[in-house]
């Protein structure tokens, strides 16, 4: 049931973003409710009049979840590589969620800059979790560059539109059976997480759908259950659809032939 990334074993297949929560306490409670073991974090340019460090950092450390820093906001490979190195030092991890955005409107990843940054960072010893599209060939190139994990989008970041192209995601699963596949971005409700897991994805990453719900702690638990349900269903094997009704009760013909 668990997941292994390199030498790290994870019991939970739910990766949780930490942004946009109403308060650090709600974030802390939501992490506990979801049972997540991987949380995404970020880093930003310090303002001239920087105040005290965010207390979220202490909360996450206390929660015991492994941190997955991202390179949000980067538009070039060079920027992303620099930020990844900063993140490695700041968060003391070689895991990096590599984001290189190519379009401001959709926040669609730039596949070319992403690949270039990936090649550099793999050489530099990072475990790269690339935020990518569901394009099969781009994904294959990322694996060729040394990624073991891919994080294709379900829909644009923060849109909550769910899995816009399940066929493409299914194709990725079928064609890349050895890659760890994590749906990242666009998941709007637990049913989307169930769908991703039923498709055979190894995990999902969710932020806004939890943090912007009316009750993030309850929603975190909903996602925990959804991910578990979807994974169990995948492992159990989902029945083939039939075009017509197939009687499930083993009766013999009509009960009373009069």
């Amino acid at each position, binding site marked *: 049931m668990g997941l292994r990334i390199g030498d790290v074993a994870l019991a939970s297949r739910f990766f949780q*973003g*930490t*942004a*946009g*929560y109403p308060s650090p306490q709600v*974030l802390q409670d939501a992490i506990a409710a979801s049972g997540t073991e991987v949380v*995404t*974090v*970020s*880093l*930003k*340019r*310090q*303002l*001239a009049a*920087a105040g005290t*460090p*965010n207390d*979220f*950092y202490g909360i996450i450390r206390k929660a015991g979840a492994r941190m997955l*820093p*991202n390179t*949000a906001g980067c538009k070039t490979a*060079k*920027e992303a590589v*620099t*930020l990844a*190195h*900063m*993140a490695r*030092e*700041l*968060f003391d991890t070689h895991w990096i969620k590599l984001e290189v955005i190519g379009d401001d409107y959709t926040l669609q990843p730039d596949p070319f800059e992403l690949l270039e940054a990936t090649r550099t960072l793999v050489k530099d010893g990072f475990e790269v979790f690339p935020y990518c599209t569901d394009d099969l060939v781009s994904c294959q190139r990322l694996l060729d560059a040394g990624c073991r994990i891919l994080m294709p989008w379900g829909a644009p*970041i*923060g849109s909550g539109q769910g899995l816009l192209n399940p066929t493409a995601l299914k194709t990725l699963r079928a064609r890349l059976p050895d890659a760890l596949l994590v749906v990242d971005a666009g998941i709007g409700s637990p049913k989307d997480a169930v769908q991703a897991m039923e498709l055979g994805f190894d995990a999902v*990453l969710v*932020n*806004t759908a939890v943090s912007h719900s009316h009750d993030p702690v309850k929603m975190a638990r909903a996602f925990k259950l959804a991910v578990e349900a979807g994974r169990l269903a995948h492992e159990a094997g989902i029945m083939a659809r039939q075009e017509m009704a197939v009687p499930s009760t083993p009766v013999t013909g009509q009960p009373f032939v009069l």
Partner: protein
Amino acid sequence: MTFHITVNGEPRSIDAATTLADLVAALGEPPASLATAVNGDFVPRGARATVQLHDGDAVFTFQPITGG
């Protein structure tokens, strides 16, 4: 001699002999609480004392935040 640099986009004047470690100390933050880059290149914590700042340099300091 005084150099004119920027720190996170804000202009700042420093003595010509200032290193990146000196600058970080002057910012008043614990050195381990931020990551640094000069002119877009990462400078590891351990190397800050060896990086001499020059006129026109753009220094960036980054801190942890929440993220998705």
